[in-house]
């Protein structure tokens, strides 16, 4: 019941994420078209100036790191990522990420179905062995209960266990590499975002947030990798061993470890979001004042060209905000795509485990179904760890995107 609840929460969360990104792309679009930028005296000249400013800033922006991280991703993920072309995102596409949402969703569904079909092999193998062992065991029941028969059926149980464990190992590897990819991506994109934040006039936000963001990303990913995932894995191993031997009460210990992993994950999520929200709420006000002062000083104390200059400050800040929003939206999208593909992969294996466990329960011994259910439970925790990490990174990028805009709005 509890797991069911968790799973639904995860699904709702993922749907929410997708909707959120779409609305954020809309926000990025609005920013460009919002009248704030061309309310000055010569709208056309300003637009040209903005384009020049954006071009100049983009020329100095080092995208190499992000591109390198993206190159290392799986082919499936790469195929579904939009092109990292900030300039055309801002100008040519009218301020939106060129995402073909239906195509992406059909791509994901296709991927999920393909994974299920791929894992059908696993399903077939497991079910076949379960049926074979069960039928051979029924032959045996007609005899008197003997130790040799038990031993022989233990061998078949071990074979079933081994095959399912191998697939489980593959799934865990997928989860680990996904978290690593996301962390690498965050390491590449966060410095760029905070630099742009600073360029947009939000100096205070940038100086306060940058170390906090980087530290919390590192802390979260490290804790997930060193505490949450190992706890989930220990839970699974204990559960599997508990099912292998009758006297050893490993299953309940395994459940305990699983629960501990979920609790740690929850605490981590709460702490991360709490820190980011508190820090993110304070800094922008200071920024707004800073930007206003710069404009005011330029307007008052620089003779003749001062008025133009104070306008230019705004345009430069606006250009940085545009780039930052574009890069940020791209980052949000990349995090979603990176996470969701491996989540789909894990989910398909989870489905197979549950299916085999349900089908095996009436025909085979209880320990076959027990072991498979244990593995499915552990895999659910691993899945939650990947999902929650993705959500946290997502929120971090969202906060950086919204910050600079607040700074400009305050003035």
């Amino acid at each position: 019941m509890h797991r069911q609840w968790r799973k639904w929460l995860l699904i709702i969360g993922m749907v929410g994420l997708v909707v959120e990104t779409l609305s954020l792309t809309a926000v990025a679009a609005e920013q460009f078209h919002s009248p704030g930028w061309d309310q000055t005296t010569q709208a056309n000249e300003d637009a040209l100036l903005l384009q020049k400013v954006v071009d100049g800033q983009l020329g100095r922006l080092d995208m190499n790191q992000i591109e390198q991280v993206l190159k290392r991703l799986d082919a499936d993920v790469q195929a579904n990522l939009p092109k990292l072309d900030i300039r055309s995102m801002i100008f040519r596409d009218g301020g939106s990420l060129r995402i073909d949402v239906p195509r992406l969703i059909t791509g994901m569904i296709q991927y999920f179905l393909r994974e299920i079909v791929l894992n059908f092999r696993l399903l077939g193998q497991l079910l076949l062995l379960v049926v074979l062992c069960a039928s051979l065991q029924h032959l045996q029941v007609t005899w008197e209960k003997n130790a040799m028969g038990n031993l022989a059926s233990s061998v078949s149980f071990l074979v079933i266990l081994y095959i399912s464990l191998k697939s489980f190992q593959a799934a865990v590897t997928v989860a680990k590499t996904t978290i690593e990819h996301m962390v690498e991506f965050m390491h590449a994109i966060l410095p760029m975002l905070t630099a742009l934040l600073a360029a947009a006039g939000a100096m205070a936000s940038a100086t306060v947030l940058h170390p906090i963001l980087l530290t919390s990303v590192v802390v979260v990913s490290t804790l997930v990798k060193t505490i949450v995932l190992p706890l989930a894995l220990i839970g699974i191993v204990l559960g599997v061993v508990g099912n292998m031997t009758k006297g050893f009460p490993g299953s309940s210990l395994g459940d305990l470890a699983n629960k501990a992993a979920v609790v740690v994950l929850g605490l981590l999520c709460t702490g991360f979001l709490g820190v980011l929200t508190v820090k993110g709420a304070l800094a922008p006000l200071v920024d707004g004042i800073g930007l206003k002062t710069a404009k005011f000083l330029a307007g008052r104390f620089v003779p003749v060209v001062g008025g133009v200059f104070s306008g230019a400050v705004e345009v430069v800040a606006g250009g940085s905000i545009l780039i930052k929003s574009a890069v940020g939206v791209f980052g949000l999208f990349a995090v979603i795509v990176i996470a969701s593909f491996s989540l789909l992969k894990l989910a398909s294996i989870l489905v197979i485990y549950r299916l085999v466990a349900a089908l095996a329960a009436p025909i085979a011994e209880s320990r076959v179904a027990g072991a498979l259910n244990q593995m499915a439970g552990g895999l659910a925790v691993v899945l939650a760890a990947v999902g929650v990490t993705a959500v946290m990174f997502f929120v971090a990028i969202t906060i950086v995107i919204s910050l600079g805009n607040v700074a400009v709005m305050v003035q």
Partner: protein
Amino acid sequence: MADIVGLVLVGVILSVLIVHIKEKNYPEFATIMGFVFVTIAMLRFMPSLADLVRVFNEVGRQAGVRSYYFDLVLRSLAVAYIAAFGAQLSKDAGEGAIAIAIELAAKILILALGIPVLLAIVQTLAEILG
């Protein structure tokens, strides 16, 4: 259908005969007759069993189960079956010690068959944790 009727008929007649022989103080003949019956019955029904195994193997090959695992399961079950027959015959003959020896040998053999898988599982678990 006809096969099983024949087998049951022969089995029942032999059982009656064996009881008769045992009463006449020729227990060794009783054991030999039992052994011969079991062997013939097993050989008689081996082709059907072979068909069964072939079907399982075929399905397993289609499902992509490595034949090594299949062999392992079938082998361990075969060892258990054969040893069970032998142990039961020895018990009927009154030789409990021999029966125990047969059972022990069978257990060791099955364990030896299962050990590679067990080791592989332990290794996989260690890799997952590591």
